[in-house]
């Protein structure tokens, strides 16, 4: 990991967004990808929450990385994560009330996101504060973008609107804001990214085909 110190911060962000995109490439932390993506606004807000938590957790872990005893590092990471999630939860409850009523449970559940713990354990605990910060930023941004992309399709097709503004004057396809349509939209998007990967980059559709 030591030579990764050399990787520029920009590279770290790009990695998080494309190569190691949490949802489409690593296929972890999937629950919110459907639960909150029935409107762009909800998707965006949860994405921001995750971005914040991921960045702060990474930074905190990196600051304390020499200090934390390796035997109890996982419980300590969990404590740090749950602390930051609580902060986000309370702030959202106070300032973004309408959205919080819909996505509150999923904000609290950020605490159990494998991706956040994984980033803290695999990257932040071994790297300098600055790098860890940008790594968290990149991975959080990747997550945010994925959520916005999914919710863009779902809200457009399912309600004929974007961010609550009505833009299409057709009968919307309700199914896309329902659970079944959410699974379908994510499945189709994943297949689309696999197709791009296979068609233009000669990959084997890594995110999908590896299947975990």
């Amino acid at each position, binding site marked *: 990991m030591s030579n990764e110190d050399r990787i520029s911060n920009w590279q770290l962000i790009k990695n998080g967004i494309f190569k190691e995109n949490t949802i489409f490439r690593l296929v972890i932390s999937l629950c919110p990808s459907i639960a909150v993506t029935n409107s762009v606004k909800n998707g965006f807000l949860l994405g921001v929450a995750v971005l914040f938590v991921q960045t702060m957790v990474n930074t905190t872990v990196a600051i304390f990385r020499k200090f934390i005893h390796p035997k109890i590092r996982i419980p300590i990471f969990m404590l740090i994560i749950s602390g930051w999630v609580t902060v986000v939860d309370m702030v959202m409850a106070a300032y973004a009330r309408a959205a919080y009523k819909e996505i509150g449970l999923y904000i609290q*559940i950020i605490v*159990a*996101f494998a991706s956040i713990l994984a980033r803290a354990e695999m990257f932040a605990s071994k790297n300098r504060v600055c790098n860890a910060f940008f790594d968290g930023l990149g991975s959080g941004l990747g997550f945010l973008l994925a959520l916005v992309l999914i919710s863009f399709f779902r809200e457009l097709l399912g309600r004929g609107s974007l961010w609550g503004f009505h833009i299409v004057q057709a009968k919307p396809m309700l199914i896309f804001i329902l659970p079944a349509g959410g699974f379908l939209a994510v499945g189709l998007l994943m297949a689309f990214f696999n197709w791009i990967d296979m068609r233009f980059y000669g990959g084997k559709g890594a995110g999908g085909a590896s*299947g975990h």
Partner: protein
Amino acid sequence: MEKEFIKLFELFIAASIINNFVFTRFLGLCIFFGVSKKMETAIGMGITFTSVMVIAAALSWLMFTYVMVPFDLTFLKIVIFIGIVAAFVQAADTIMRKVSPGLYYKLGVYLALISTNCIIIAVPLINAEEHYNFLESLAFGLGSGIGFAISMTIMASIREKLELADVPGPFRGMPIAWITTALIALAFTGFAGLITL
């Protein structure tokens, strides 16, 4: 008394089938997609999850009612619940290894995955949100666990069958699994409106 029993039963059915964690609440998806490739693992996971969920529901209900509410600590519920789950999983791991190595060999591998899984933490959170009493919390935990086990078993059996299928390239693996889930979720919408909670 009978009315209470019916309510518990309704809660159980609603949690396991109608508001199935995977198909309508979208929780536990990582595990659902990750572990539903083989039947044996799916069943083992289902059993482990159900028992952990029931016990976690009970422990956190006790904690919530007798410690957090009296001391006005409910704002710490995320921290405390994840702590309870993690501590319990750790304890279960140690105890199982000592008492029943056979069982540990079968189910122990899944235990490690549990504490970073959203459905385990979701159960106490929903229980606290809905102000369920002790028995209701247990019924909800049990129903959710069994519903999760059912959905994983179905999915595993379908995916084993799908291995033989000639799925078009880009859809192989994850995408087709998601589309399968979409179709199962579509079928599960038939249960909508069965029980109003």
